[in-house]
């Protein structure tokens, strides 16, 4: 690598380089730069300045989001061109280059879609601006519940940055605490949004240690927090914190459907983004004998080559070898009596260029209640088990996405009524299907906004 990288905080008064910095490392463990770690005093002062800043008017926000999409895709930002940025993320954090590009495209789509997403999320009885003529007759106005939204980001895929721009569109000020493993996407996106017109005091980047990250979350009105089950457990009791934890996404195939036509969709659901997304399927339940499907799935996933993350054809994630060995050991522990069809010996595939690939794993379990079906790991790791109609909805609970390959309408009704299934996809749609404007975990607006009743007579809008 060339010049050492410096990830500064992007504060309300400009970039801030703290004296306390931690090293940024590549997959081989070599130091490639440093990231600032701001103290709590800086956090408090930043948040105070952000609260004092005026809200950017709605139309300007949407224009800025459009502009930011272009900048994010094409502009040199923070000294890095778009290709250099993609290369850095893959080399430094092990996210395959193709996955980074896909995520970048997704984030740009999300930014451009906010114009319609906000409309789609708003209750039909509401107007988005009190100046709307309907408030003269009496109407609901869609209003913010708070002012400041915090993002505690993850580094497993840049796609995690596709959720929070909705908060910006709604008029929230946003403070992003980037992942220490992959802060580059957060930095680039904040830079793009600022250059596009969001004033620094409305959007900040505050790299911190975990203690100070808690200060950010405590000080914000709402926060979104990415992490494992530990993080979900830590924050789930706080109603203003939206947790993005294990997705435990699943696929159900009933006997009235021939899975052979859909095996590529099933395999793609497991391996999409190198298996690192919470929408990736980690369990497949099959009515009838699950083994032929499991074997076909193992065959498909086994074909994926092991490549360095910056190889254009790479699909699988690369991590420091020691971390991959840890994941492998954990997999062996949780697999227990499950029958391995792929990756049972090891998922570690060390690369000469540094780090190791996390190879896919396919296991079979003999019951729809097997505990392994709830185990989600950060690589293509899937558990295949049996399901009978008598088992009902219970084995399908707690799924961020459930793809139900079925034609049974009564079952579909029951799945839709199950509160712990967050998204329900039917037929030949991978669990990883996403479209800007279609909610991923509800619209953020459902949490960040509320309606207020308004009737007006005397007040006239000066601009109207």
């Amino acid at each position, binding site marked *: 690598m060339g010049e050492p990288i410096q990830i500064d905080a992007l504060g309300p008064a400009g970039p801030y380089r*703290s*004296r306390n910095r931690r090293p940024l490392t590549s997959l081989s463990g070599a130091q490639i730069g440093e990231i600032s770690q701001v103290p709590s005093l*800086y956090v408090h*002062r930043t948040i105070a300045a952000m609260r004092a800043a005026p809200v950017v008017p709605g139309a300007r926000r949407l224009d800025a989001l459009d502009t930011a999409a272009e900048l994010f895709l094409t502009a040199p930002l923070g000294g890095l061109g778009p290709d250099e940025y993609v290369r850095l993320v893959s080399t430094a954090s092990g996210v395959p280059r193709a996955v980074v590009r896909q995520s970048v495209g997704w984030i740009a789509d999300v930014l451009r879609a906010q114009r319609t997403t906000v409309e789609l999320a708003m209750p039909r009885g509401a107007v988005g601006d009190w100046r709307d003529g309907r408030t003269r007759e009496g109407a609901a106005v869609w209003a913010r519940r708070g002012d400041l939204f915090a993002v505690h980001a993850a580094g497993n895929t840049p796609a995690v940055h596709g959720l929070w721009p909705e908060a910006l569109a709604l008029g929230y000020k946003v403070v992003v605490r980037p992942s220490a493993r992959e802060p580059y996407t957060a930095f680039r996106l904040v830079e793009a949004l600022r250059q596009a017109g969001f004033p620094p005091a409305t959007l900040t980047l505050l790299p911190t240690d975990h203690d100070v990250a808690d200060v950010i979350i405590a000080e914000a009105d709402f926060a979104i927090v990415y992490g494992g089950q530990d993080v979900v457990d830590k924050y789930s009791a706080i109603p203003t914190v939206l947790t993005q934890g294990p997705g435990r996404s699943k696929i159900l195939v009933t006997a009235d459907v021939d899975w052979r036509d859909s095996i590529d969709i099933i395999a793609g659901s497991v391996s999409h983004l190198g298996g690192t997304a919470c929408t990736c399927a980690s369990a497949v339940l099959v009515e009838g004998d699950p083994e032929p499907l499991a074997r076909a799935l193992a065959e498909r996933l086994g074909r994926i080559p092991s490549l360095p993350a910056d190889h254009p054809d790479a699909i699988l994630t690369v991590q420091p070898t020691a971390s991959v060995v840890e994941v492998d050991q954990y997999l062996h522990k949780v697999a227990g009596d499950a029958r391995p069809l792929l990756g049972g010996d090891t998922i570690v595939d060390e690369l000469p260029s540094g780090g190791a690939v996390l190879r896919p794993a396919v296991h079979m379990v003999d019951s729809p209640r097997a505990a392994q079906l709830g185990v989600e790991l950060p690589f293509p790791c899937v558990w295949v088990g049996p399901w009978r109609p008598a088992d009902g909805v219970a084995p399908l609970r707690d799924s961020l996405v459930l793809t139900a390959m079925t034609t049974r309408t009564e079952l579909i009704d029951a799945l839709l009524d199950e509160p712990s299934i967050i998204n329900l996809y039917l037929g030949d749609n991978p669990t990883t299907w996403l479209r800007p404007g279609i909610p991923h975990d509800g619209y953020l607006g459902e949490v960040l906004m509320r309606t207020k009743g308004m009737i007006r007579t005397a007040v006239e809008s000066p601009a109207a």
Partner: protein
Amino acid sequence: MSSTVLDLPRAGQPAPDPDEYIGALMRWHFDASTGSPFWLRRARSLGFDPIADVRTFADLRLFPNVVDEFRDVPVEDLIPRGLAGEDRVIAGVYESGGTTGAPKRFVMFDRWMEFALSWDEFHYADLGPANVLAVAPSGPHMFGEFAARRARRHEGVRFTVDLDPRWIKRLIERDGPGAADLYAEHVIDQAAHVLTTQAVGILITTPPLLERMARRDDLVELIRKNVRFICWSGAHMDADSREIFQAEVFPGIPLKGLYGSTTILGMSRERPGEAAGGLAVFDPPSPYIAFRVVDPDTGDDVNLGERGQVVMNHLTKYALIPNNLERDHALAAEPPPGWLGCAVADVGPVATFDDHAVIEGVY
């Protein structure tokens, strides 16, 4: 019997020769006519002869760390028999710890306390008359009494608020940091009332409490208007926060730290200027208080500029507290010429100490 080399220095007096000082100190504390009952008793189980074997600062490493014994020793046993007259006047009994395990008690003598207070006097030289607000623990902690004496030196009064750091730590251990918030805000409310209604020229507090004050615009404005000196102690202040306080929050107001402990019955003072990296450097009053910074695994001194665990020594005729491994970690810094041990910079907590999790809170 008493050697004048152990007397606290008078103006213009040259510094004592280090080896001569250590030799006289050993004779004082381990002679039956001048030593304290504690040390005379403890000498029997030391396994070495302090008078014969401890002749230099380095030899002090022979001593075990005895401060844990100060948890239950009667304080009368800590008074050296050789102290008499003005030297024997006690300012108070102060406690260290109590947040991790039972507290340890130490006897503070008046003459020593006045000397310890003078150690950073030059920082206050041009301040003139001023009242003091101490937003810091009083009770069994020496912090409060130092603040009261500071006020007297400035012909002012000391305002104070109650603060119980041990209770805060219990709250944090039980309920997490959120629980301590309510207590801390209650303390700041009281400080705010004093700052609003009284003329406060010197503010003495801890870094976490100063940070809380900095969050309230009205208090920042009052402090900027009235306060002419801010003294912090009792917790860590990182270089980044220090710079923000100095440059943005309280520009132009001297912000000086004291790093000390009841186990040394005093403090080290912030050196004028700063080390590379924006760090405050702390000089102890050698030879009366001397620091070493050691590798926690080997106990050997680290090189200057390296990080390690702080070992403190109190070496006066008023008390002997050698070789005390503190919980803090710090950088070893170059001391002024002729001083025992080293100076320290970038003092901060370690993760665990003596099998109790250390929680850095309001104090």
